């Protein structure tokens, strides 16, 4: 479980979001929604430990994130980032194998156990047939699954993903989100991701975080529908939110 206590995130002196107090529970897929520039990536970067919090704390199972060593952190949190991974000749199985780095020895050689964990991670995301393909031959959706498998191989209780469904075609978006939902439920991991695929997130996720006007509202999609958060977030000129069907309509 991850607890944010009066957390303020931002760069240098400049706070992007202030005084966030929220929790992320194990076994749930939580989607972070918000317009461009509201600070979604900043939250994710702070929670991943890439950015120091400006104030407040992030508690990981009760322990302050900033007090963890790099090695402890790498065994607690894994990430899938927006930056494109392009490495010539790297196979899917190699990429997923990188997820074992926190556990391997000085030269990074994979043990038999590491290798079986890698195979298992690839199976879990359903791309076993692609294991020996080089990553430059993958479609965007397949690549995203390979990166997710890397995160699984890292065997962390928490996975953060920054816009994992961007650039994917419609089917790939749905299958990636479904996959993450299933993984969160089956493996009891905390899966927290930012996305612009609002409709899918409302229909699929366990919990939503909606960033609007410098505030974060969180809750199940039905709660946020009932209390009007989603209406406020979505209803704009030309768009309406159908609370019954949980769909968006263009007027």
């Amino acid at each position, binding site marked *: 479980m991850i607890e944010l206590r009066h957390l303020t995130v931002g760069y240098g002196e400049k706070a992007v979001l202030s005084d966030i107090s929220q929790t992320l529970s194990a076994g749930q897929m939580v989607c972070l929604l918000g317009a461009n520039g509201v600070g979604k990536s900043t939250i994710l970067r702070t929670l*991943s*430990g*890439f950015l120091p919090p400006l104030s407040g704390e992030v508690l990981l199972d009760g322990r302050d994130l900033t007090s963890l060593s*790099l*090695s402890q*952190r*790498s*065994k607690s*949190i*894994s*990430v899938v*980032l927006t*930056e494109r*991974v392009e*490495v*010539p*000749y*790297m196979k899917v199985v*190699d*990429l997923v194998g*990188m*997820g074992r*780095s*926190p556990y*391997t020895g*000085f*030269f*990074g*050689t994979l043990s038999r156990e590491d290798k079986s964990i890698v195979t298992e991670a690839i199976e879990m995301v359903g791309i076993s047939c692609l294991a020996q393909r080089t990553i*430059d031959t993958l479609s965007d959706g397949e690549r995203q699954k390979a990166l997710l498998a890397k995160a699984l191989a*890292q065997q962390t209780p928490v996975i953060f993903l920054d816009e994992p469904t961007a650039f994917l075609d419609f089917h790939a978006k749905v299958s990636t989100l479904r996959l993450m939902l299933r993984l969160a439920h089956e493996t009891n991991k905390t899966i927290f991701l930012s996305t612009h695929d609002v409709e899918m997130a409302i229909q699929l996720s366990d919990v939503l975080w909606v960033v609007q006007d410098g505030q974060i509202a969180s809750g199940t999609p039905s709660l946020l529908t009932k209390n009007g958060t989603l209406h406020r977030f979505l209803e704009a000129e030309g768009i309406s939110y159908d609370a019954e069907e949980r769909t968006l309509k263009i007027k």
Partner: protein
Amino acid sequence: MKTKLYLLALSMALLSVANVLWGSLDIPLRDVWQILCGGEVEGHPAWSIIILEGRVPQMLTALLTGTALGTCGLLLQTAFRNPLAGPSILGIDSGANLGVAIVLLLLGGTASIGSLTVSGHLLVVIAAMAGALGIMALLMLLSRLLRSQVMLLITGVIISYVTGSIIQLLNYSATEQGVFSFVIWGMGNFSSVGIERLPVFCALSVVGLLLALLLVKPLDALLLGDRYAENLGIKIGHVRQMLLLVTGLLTATTTAFCGPISFIGLAVPHLARLALGTSYHRTLMPATMLIGANLALMCNLLSALPRDGSLIPISVITPLIGAPVVLHVILKSNKN
């Protein structure tokens, strides 16, 4: 994969032998062997000197220089995530050049490289190292600001121009002898190390290479980018400092002793990737080292082609081999 590495090691061994056998003077194989075993050939006392103080140190110098430059290129390409990075393109060896120029042209005056004492030569190495490290530090700093890979390369080219013009200025005010020795040094030469400086050269190169081998795991993680690497538990700042130190040491050592040698650092890692079909440093680094050694030994053989005892400068040969490889890389990345 392993077979390929063994084959490369075998060819390196064969080329090393060829380097000792081949020269402007024909010495029979049996006599060479006898000299190497500590004996002397009757009636030809000079042969011992040619083999033991000429060809063997030159072979070792070529071998280590190729290994060091290839390794440098690989470290730089991974550190900057840029396939066109290399000690010469990024201007790192021009930093080393500048250090050497200051010592030779400004401080050394008329002293030629050949007549420098070990301590004098150490001074050249230290100056080259300071120059190389300075440029590396500057590049590391700029690489945080410059997101584009092309911009970094252009920066490297600009750095080379600036150091070049400072060197010109130094040349302008230096003595004729100083300019001459600097020009000769600048042509690149595996024979300038010689028997007396060989231990220092070997020690510095081997230390640099061993340090490079220690970086194999973090380098693999860096392939994915800084953030992924950090998330995998790699201390990025620490690794970058080590990379700075190792590439500085290796570039400075080879440049100070053998002159600026272009293209080997840039081309060799690509040849290694092509030959092994991997980006993993665990296998790529040994392969790069072996291919670098092979290539430099080959260049050294080619440089001794004229039968009149003169040597073709190394800096004439390496671009002819390296440039096609680099063109191939550019065309390939253009296709992607």
